[in-house]
């Protein structure tokens, strides 16, 4: 793009550039950095005092329950990601390749709605639907099955995660696959590639970047959610978000909650960076 006049900093340019810098430094960068600092503070008699001690870190990281909770959260978030990616794929495939342009637009329109509506109420609704005497067991009872215990299990937690992540994953997968050049798929079929092989050999490699990004988002959302494991999983297993919640709300141990939070952020950054590196890595021999 060509340069515009008044390239030098002037009042007009600053008016539009500065607000977000000020605002985010005070209310975003500030809180995050303060949280890091806080992880070194001390708590005495339920009061936090500023200090620079590693006691919170050594206490948290040496506790078995922290690591149990850490690996449980990583595992369940990974399972949630795999489930969401697999469940969403056939639907996204259908919307991307079998549906008309307008159907696809309507489907995405509908899937955006839950993303911006109360997740909390939706989770509570599942709580009622899945309960011992709830709708699902009611229906199963008619055909002589059940009742099954679905709440307070990993299954319950996963239903919650799917509620949170599935619409977004279907949207991202659909958009990615809809952007694939259709002639490449026809070419593969023409060269004798069987339908399933086409999915593995052509569609997935071509939409790799978008699929990985969908998976990263799904992992971040599941990893950081406390509602599903709390209400639908019944806190049977403590996830890291629940640990933060408990440590902050009941124990007034903000510095230790900060340690957990920083560990979570570190894990998420590591996973996001690895994922993005994989997504944009060129395959060997690729021109």
């Amino acid at each position, binding site marked *: 793009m060509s340069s*515009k006049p008044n390239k030098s900093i002037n009042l007009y*340019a600053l008016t*539009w*550039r500065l*607000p*977000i*810098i000020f*605002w*985010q*430094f005070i*209310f975003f960068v*500030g*809180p*995050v950095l*303060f*949280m890091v600092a*806080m992880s070194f503070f001390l708590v005495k008699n339920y009061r936090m005092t500023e200090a620079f001690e590693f006691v919170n870190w050594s206490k948290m990281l040496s506790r078995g329950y922290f690591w149990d909770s850490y690996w449980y959260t990583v595992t369940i978030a990974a399972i949630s990601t795999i489930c969401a990616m697999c*469940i*969403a794929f*056939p639907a996204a*495939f*259908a919307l991307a390749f*079998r549906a008309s342009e307008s159907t696809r637009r309507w*489907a995405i329109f509908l899937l*955006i*709605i839950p993303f*911006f*509506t*109360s997740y*909390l*109420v*939706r989770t*509570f*609704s*599942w*709580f*009622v639907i899945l*309960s011992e*005497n*709830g*709708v699902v067991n*009611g229906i199963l009872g*008619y055909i002589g099955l059940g009742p099954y215990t679905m709440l307070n299990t990993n299954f319950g937690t996963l239903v919650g995660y799917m*509620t949170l992540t*599935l*619409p977004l994953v*279907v949207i991202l997968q659909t958009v990615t696959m809809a952007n694939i050049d259709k002639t490449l798929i026809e070419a593969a079929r023409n060269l004798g590639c069987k339908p399933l092989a086409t999915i593995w050999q052509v569609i997935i490699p071509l939409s790799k970047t978008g699929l990985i990004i969908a998976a990263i988002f799904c992992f971040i959302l599941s990893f*950081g959610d*406390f509602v599903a494991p709390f*209400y639908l999983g019944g806190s049977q297993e403590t996830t890291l*978000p629940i640990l*933060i919640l408990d440590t*902050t709300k009941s124990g007034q141990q*903000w510095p230790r909650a*900060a340690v957990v*939070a920083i560990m*979570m*952020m570190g894990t*998420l950054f590591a996973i*996001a960076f690895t994922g993005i590196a994989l997504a944009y890595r060129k395959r060997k021999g690729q021109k």
Partner: protein
Amino acid sequence: MNTNRTLNVILGIYVALIFAFVFAPIIFSMIFSFNSQRFPTIPLGNFTTEWYAKILADPDVWEAALNSLIVSVSTAVIATFLGFCTAYSDFRYNFRFKGPYLALILLPPTIPLIIMALAMLAWFSKIGMSGQIYSIVIAHSVLTAPFAMAVIRLRLNQMDPDLESAAWNLGGSEWATMRHVIIPFCKPAILSGLFLTAAVSFDEFAVSWFVSGLNKTLPVIILEIVQGNIDPQVNAIGTFVFLISMTLVVLAQVFFASRQMKSMKS
């Protein structure tokens, strides 16, 4: 091509099931809100408006509704203003550190809400701004500004890059051009951004719960009721919350779509 048609039917059913799963909790919540059973199941109980009567009689709910309204309207205005400024800066100027500059606005939604909640709570306590309604507004504006930014930036992409220069060329100063060209052009996106950020703010519970103190919003009330036991009042409040946020999101998309149509025509 018989197998192909069978496959299409199977895929169609599958997509329908996915949509059923996504919308089941919303629809059941609405149904339960008019159901007389305390523990709703199949078959349903009688039709009742008992739960709505209960929440309407509850002053806490009214207060929370008012708080939610104040928070989401203020958040929408601040976040859309911030989003507009940033989108315009990104559109118009090239400058050093533009990557970090954009990261500043785009990063917050990628950080789990529980972490943002803890960080905001601690920081607001530190600087003496905790427990107020405006604490929630500030926190929400940080979280929602990127949505407004994205919608407005997409709109600016559709603008003829000569349009701004044309206004200067006709004697408009940069400020006048902003007022008479850029803002009118972005108006649908600005409205879309307002509704979208209001919707996100209206539903957010984790950060609100941490920083709100005694000024509870509707999602915080729901959170607290749910912690106790099953209370069908939640369905009534939930239905109300759903209707409001869905209206906001649909309005946002209508403005988004209408301008797509218009740009396609020309």
